[in-house]
């Protein structure tokens, strides 16, 4: 299977790229996905993880809102192991205009979003963490979605359908024949190995970095990088998503996801060159916590686990040379018709929520170019892992009396828990105790999910995402990776990189228990283990 020729090469391992590869693979194409880092490292992995109902866009962007609710309902069906059906509240606080509630619900209904005005008392009962001062509440079908899991499941499905994946591989240039792109030059960033791959169509699904990739291909796209900062809290304080019922603003969404909850976001235009080095400022932290505490006062007394920032891949409209007219919708550019460059398609804009639709649009464009006629089935075919409706059902089917760790594995992997090698006791040993990740789950990720670093492993399994931020599990997992890859020297470096990456998210909120944990981690690695 060491072919270098494919029907389509997809650049970018975010959710759009992974979704596009899956769709292409499902339509019978031979696919290759190339990602310069790991899957879900860009905007895909750096957002709230909100399964939008679309309500947030209903007033200002009814078209996006309608897209959202359609995709929302689809994801519940095809990605059940990545989705939590929590529902959401849009709350009105005393300082907000209650009249907006009606405008909001009307717009929601017009977009097809089930929005129901409920009594504030009921809201307080449904969601005990909500600011009790609320004067109004609307219930909407929001939820949460794990973007890492979703991305991995798309990639896995593409692989199961014959797709190939090259992670940590960057495109250094395009191979052209006359006015057509026919392939790419690549370089593996870990080994330094250079390889060429060929396909009649190349899809640019690189998000904000798509501007750079397009430039390599000699065409221009104007991206509009907007940084958004978010905070992760150390445990889940809310059951439902909590939003503010007003015009979208800073820090007005609190999303419960897995064992944590996330408040965000801010929005700051940044120069394109800064996209790779976004950092959260103390001012952003202050803003997020103070505004967040208005949604749920408990945030003001809950430990903060991490701060992180993403860059929204907004794209300037083609018809606006100033670059100020920003589209939040899906943008699919066929560079043949736009720029006279054959074999090159850019799919950008959009949102995590609409990735499947973006993939469908991009795949339609690819199929048109290749003359393939086959309908899209991604809206009805469950992703691997999502064949059951709930993790409870999965766990009960496999184990008579599942342990906490087995339940946690089922919640992460869905029906994929059957991929864990055996019922052997040695596979059940926990590597990560905070998130309850076992040896078996880690080995399964290494075997099936393209893991080459600890940080990759974290995105696949939640190793190191818990309260201790890798303090204990990182070196255990490094031992397993060293064994799997047979290279200790690389693993030693990887371990340092992982701890550095964890620290990057810790120091912006480095006080209280977070600072205690950081001090302890310093001891363990520097003085006890001798890293």
């Amino acid at each position, binding site marked *: 299977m060491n072919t270098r020729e494919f029907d389509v090469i997809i650049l970018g391992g975010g959710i759009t790229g992974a979704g596009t590869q899956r769709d292409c693979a499902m339509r019978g194409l031979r696919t290759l996905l190339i990602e310069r880092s790991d899957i879900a490292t860009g905007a895909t992995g750096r957002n709230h993880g909100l399964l939008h109902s679309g309500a947030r866009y209903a007033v200002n962007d009814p078209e996006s809102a309608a897209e959202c609710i359609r995709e929302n309902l689809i994801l519940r069906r095809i990605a059940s192991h990545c989705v939590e059906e929590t529902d959401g509240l849009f709350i009105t606080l005393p300082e907000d205009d209650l009249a907006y509630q009606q405008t909001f619900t009307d717009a929601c209904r017009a977009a097809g979003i089930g929005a129901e005005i409920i009594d504030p008392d009921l809201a307080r009962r449904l969601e005990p963490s909500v600011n009790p001062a609320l004067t109004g509440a609307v219930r909407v079908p929001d939820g949460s979605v794990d973007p890492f899991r979703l991305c991995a499941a798309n990639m896995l499905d593409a692989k199961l359908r014959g797709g190939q994946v090259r992670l940590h591989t960057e495109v250094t240039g395009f191979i052209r024949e006359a006015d057509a792109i026919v392939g790419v030059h690549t370089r593996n960033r870990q080994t330094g190995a250079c390889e060429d791959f060929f396909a009649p169509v190349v899809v640019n699904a690189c998000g904000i970095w798509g501007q750079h990739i397009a430039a390599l291909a000699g065409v221009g796209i104007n991206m509009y990088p907007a940084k958004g900062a978010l905070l992760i809290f*150390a445990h889940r304080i809310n059951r439902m998503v909590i939003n503010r019922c007003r015009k979208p603003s800073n820090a007005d969404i609190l999303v419960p996801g897995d064992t944590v909850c996330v408040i965000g976001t801010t929005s700051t235009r940044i120069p394109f060159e800064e996209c790779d080095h976004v950092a959260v400022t103390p001012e952003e932290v202050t803003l997020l916590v103070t505004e967040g505490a208005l949604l749920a006062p408990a945030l*003001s007394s809950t430990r903060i686990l991490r701060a992180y920032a993403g860059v929204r891949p907004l794209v300037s409209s083609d018809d606006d040379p100033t670059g100020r007219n920003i589209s939040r919708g899906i943008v699919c550019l066929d560079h043949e018709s736009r720029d006279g460059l054959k074999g090159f398609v850019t799919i950008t804009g959009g949102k995590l929520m609409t990735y499947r639709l973006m993939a469908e649009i991009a795949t339609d464009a690819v199929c048109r170019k290749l003359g393939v006629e086959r309908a899209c089935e991604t809206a009805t075919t469950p992703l691997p892992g999502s064949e059951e409706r709930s993790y409870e059902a999965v766990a009960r089917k496999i184990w008579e009396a599942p*342990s*906490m760790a087995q*339940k*946690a594995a089922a919640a992460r992997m869905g029906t994929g828990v059957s991929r864990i090698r055996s019922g052997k006791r040695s596979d059940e040993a926990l590597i990560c105790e905070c998130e309850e990740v076992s040896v078996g789950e880690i080995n399964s990720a290494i075997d099936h999910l393209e893991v080459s670093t600890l940080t990759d492993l974290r995105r696949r399994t939640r190793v190191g995402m818990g309260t201790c931020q890798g303090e204990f599990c990182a070196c255990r997992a490094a031992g397993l990776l060293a064994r799997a890859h047979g290279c200790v020297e690389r693993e030693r470096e990887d371990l340092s990189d992982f701890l550095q990456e964890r620290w990057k998210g810790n120091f912006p909120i480095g006080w209280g228990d977070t600072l205690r*944990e950081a001090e302890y981690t310093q001891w363990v690695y520097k003085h006890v283990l001798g890293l």
Partner: protein
Amino acid sequence: MKLQEYTVSKHNFEECMKCTVCTVYCPVLQVNPLYPGPKQAGPDGERLRLKDPFFFNYALKYCLNCKRCEVACPSGVGIADLIQASRIKYDRTRPKLRDRILASTDLMGSFSRPFAPVVNAVTGLGVTKTALDATLKIDHRRSFPKYSGRGFESWLRKRAEEQAAFPEQVAYYHGCYVNYNNPALGKDLVKVLNALGVGVQLLEKEKCCGIAMITNGMSETATRHAKHNVEIIRKAVAGKGLTVVTTSSSCTLTLRDEYPKLLGVDNADVRESVLMAVRYVFERLEAGATLRFKPGFHKKVAYHVPCHMERLGWGVFSERLLRMIPGVEFTLLDSACCGIAGTYGFKKENYEASQAIGAPLFEQIRSVDPEVVACDCETCKWQIEMSTGYRVENPISILAEAIEI
């Protein structure tokens, strides 16, 4: 809103640094691999349970609630509280008949006491033990606490007038054990306090503190008891200005700490007035009161700090009292669980574990070879006596024996 507010988490379990020190000191982990351990069952599990009660693990029932994890925790996390609270919140299995019987120490007591000689004889019989083992899963190797024919309450009630004559007064929460099994301890306390010029009153109809109900899944009954007990303690404290003294470390911990933390029964106004008698006596002596000791008294005493005394942090009072008795040759035993943990060790499924937990303590006692082991907990007494053959007495009883009136 000030940012200071979000500096220190109000969620105690978030102070867990995952350092695993609690697992070093958990006696159950050493012997029962089915127990997930205090860290997993406590702060780690809590994050998952907050996500979904589905993550509740029934293996949490193996927790002894000895609280040694809390004493060891460098971060001050109420680990055992978390575990017991989540059992109360999520455990939907109904307690077994056996557990209900073991937990209802007061009902057992009031039923057995009038027939004490018969009950003691019957529970001592091999055939009964075998039957209990087979039917109720109460381990046949266990010796049962003996029931006393005459309750302490009626004994003291008869002396109410005489006690009222003392210039100072305390109320005594004697607990089920003193009333039904060991009235002698209550009498010893009365002797010591009288020697200090303090008279002893009963509370207005005390009920079992409920500790065994909490660990056996009967938190509703326990809560009823808690409300009642706090009410009568309040009458004694606020109404009569009395201090309430106790002789059982487990009852004391329950009255002071488990009521508000696990059962949500507020006792803030009376908590500081509920004291172990050893502390009360020590403070009297520190304030200048004196006791006359028997000349020529000699006793080799090894003091075992019961788990709940360790959690209260008051072992120091028993130790100091015992050390100040002339003629006491004192050894402080290494602080370790004896394995019984209330009703835990009585259950057939826990017998082996229970004995294994206590083994190092028993070994140390044998090597010290004291005349008597001192200890503030009645269930430790049963366990140590049964397992080592050494006599175990409450420090108050040893003090009573040493003084002259």
